[in-house]
């Protein structure tokens, strides 16, 4: 059976060029960049070149880029690092209710360490209201951490306004751009971003590598202790294959950005139109326009997400859901609930996240099989038609 991958927000395949470069830096150019000999010098150079490419992707300078093991570490370093380094200035942090757990659980941990966290609510489209943000700021606020684009419903936040407000107030602004980086254009200077998290495996680099952008001058305390790697910001032998791969992926992303965004958006809009036309009792989750190019998120009333996923899986289609049954947790997606969805509606959510490798044919196949699956599950549902 043909397998169709519609789960690019969970992770992406590694680009062929990226993987081949990584192979080279595993088996031939394997020196430790800290070593002074030829093997070390050649990987040091490669790491610094990768830093330049990653910086270019978001219009930063290379010395503002710090390599990490992924998005979760980046979020931890950004938030704890700013919190610990600026404790004397204040102990208040503002974030949102719809952040990824890497941000939310880090904030919850900091609450135990004596920090106060405000979790901003969002509107029905998962959008933060600038008014709420303004009202939440106190003279103890040291950090605003608001994600660039939501991983479940794809909503893109008003980053530019937030950045401007934070800069005016002299508060650091961190954005978790794990979904956005490499998948839509970002300019940290224009957007007044102070810290930005990215993760390789969301844009065709490998799992296990990422980067944190820290604007020059922002005070951050390191959280992983050891050798003086990454200018004392992140100890540990550099993941050279991962890093050179990240650099290559950044280069490819930058080169193909406009084309890729337009292409993926086309597929996305086709799915949204198709489902809307073919399936009754549905609801598009997330913002109608200000959403990630590859994100589709629908709630199918009266049915449950895992059953839907399983049926799609049996048809060879890989997607994701915000249902509690899928996640193994007790509650469905905190994002969907924050947007005001009821438990039942949140349960019936399906996320399709598209990538540059998907085809029109795959979309057509999906649009063919979804209506019948939904119909079948609804016929089994005690909530439907009774």
């Amino acid at each position: 059976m043909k397998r169709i991958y519609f789960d690019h927000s969970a992770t992406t395949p590694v680009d062929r060029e990226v993987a081949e470069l990584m192979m080279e830096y595993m088996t031939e150019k394997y020196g430790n960049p800290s070593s002074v000999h030829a093997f070390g010098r050649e990987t040091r150079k490669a790491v610094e070149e990768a830093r330049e490419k990653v910086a270019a992707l978001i219009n930063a300078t290379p010395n503002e880029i710090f390599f990490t093991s992924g998005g979760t570490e980046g979020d931890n370093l950004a938030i704890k690092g700013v919190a610990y380094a600026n404790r004397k200035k204040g102990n208040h942090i503002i974030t949102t209710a719809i952040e990824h757990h890497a941000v939310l659980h880090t904030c919850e941990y900091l609450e135990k360490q004596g920090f106060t966290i405000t979790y901003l609510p969002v509107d029905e489209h998962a959008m933060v209201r600038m008014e709420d943000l303004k009202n939440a700021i106190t003279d103890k606020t040291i950090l605003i951490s608001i994600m660039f684009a939501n991983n479940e419903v794809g909503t893109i936040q008003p980053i530019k306004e937030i950045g401007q407000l934070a800069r005016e107030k002299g508060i650091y602004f961190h954005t978790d751009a794990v979904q956005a980086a490499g998948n839509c254009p970002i300019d940290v200077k224009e957007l007044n971003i102070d810290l930005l998290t990215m993760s390789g495996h969301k844009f065709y680099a490998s799992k296990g590598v990422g980067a944190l952008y820290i604007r020059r001058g922002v005070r951050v305390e390191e959280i992983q202790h050891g050798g003086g790697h990454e200018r004392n910001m992140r100890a540990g032998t550099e993941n050279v294959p991962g890093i050179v791969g990240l650099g290559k992926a950044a280069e490819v992303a930058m080169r193909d950005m406009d084309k890729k965004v337009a292409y993926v958006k086309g597929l996305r809009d086709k799915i949204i139109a198709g489902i809307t036309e073919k399936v009754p009792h549905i609801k598009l989750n997330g913002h109608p326009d200000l959403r990630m190019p590859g994100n589709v998120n629908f709630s199918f009333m009266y049915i449950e997400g895992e059953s839907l996923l399983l049926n799609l899986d049996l048809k060879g289609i890989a997607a994701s859901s915000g249902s509690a049954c899928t996640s193994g947790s007790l509650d469905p997606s905190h994002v969907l609930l924050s947007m005001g969805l009821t438990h039942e509606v949140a349960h019936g959510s399906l996320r399709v996240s598209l990538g540059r490798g998907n085809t029109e044919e795959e979309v057509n196949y999906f649009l063919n099989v979804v209506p019948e699956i939904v119909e079948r599950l609804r016929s089994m549902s005690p909530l439907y038609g009774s």
Partner: protein
Amino acid sequence: MYTDKVMDHFTNPRNVGEIKDAAGVGEVGNAKCGDIMRIYLQVENDIITDVKFKTFGCGAAIATSSMVTEMVKGKTLDEALEISNQAVAEALGGLPPAKMHCSNLAADALHEAIKDYIAKKGK
């Protein structure tokens, strides 16, 4: 993740549907994840002659619903009351640890339906 038995009952669930004017109906909601299962019984001489279900829930919930309806058909009410959640899970070749609570749904709905029948009959 799921056994072949679970997938079989999930893809071809037995006894889906409703029974009009059923002798007993039981509905339970799953406190853990908010899902719902409803079981309809037809009873003659204390023997379950027909059974149907409707379920809003995960693959395991649907499969256990289907399995429990298979297990009770033709059984006496006393025998049916003795079907435990564990027995349903075992009949399916086991469930993943995170899904064990779903099997509770099926046996509980069955027992509720029987209780409903007894209560109605008592009137």
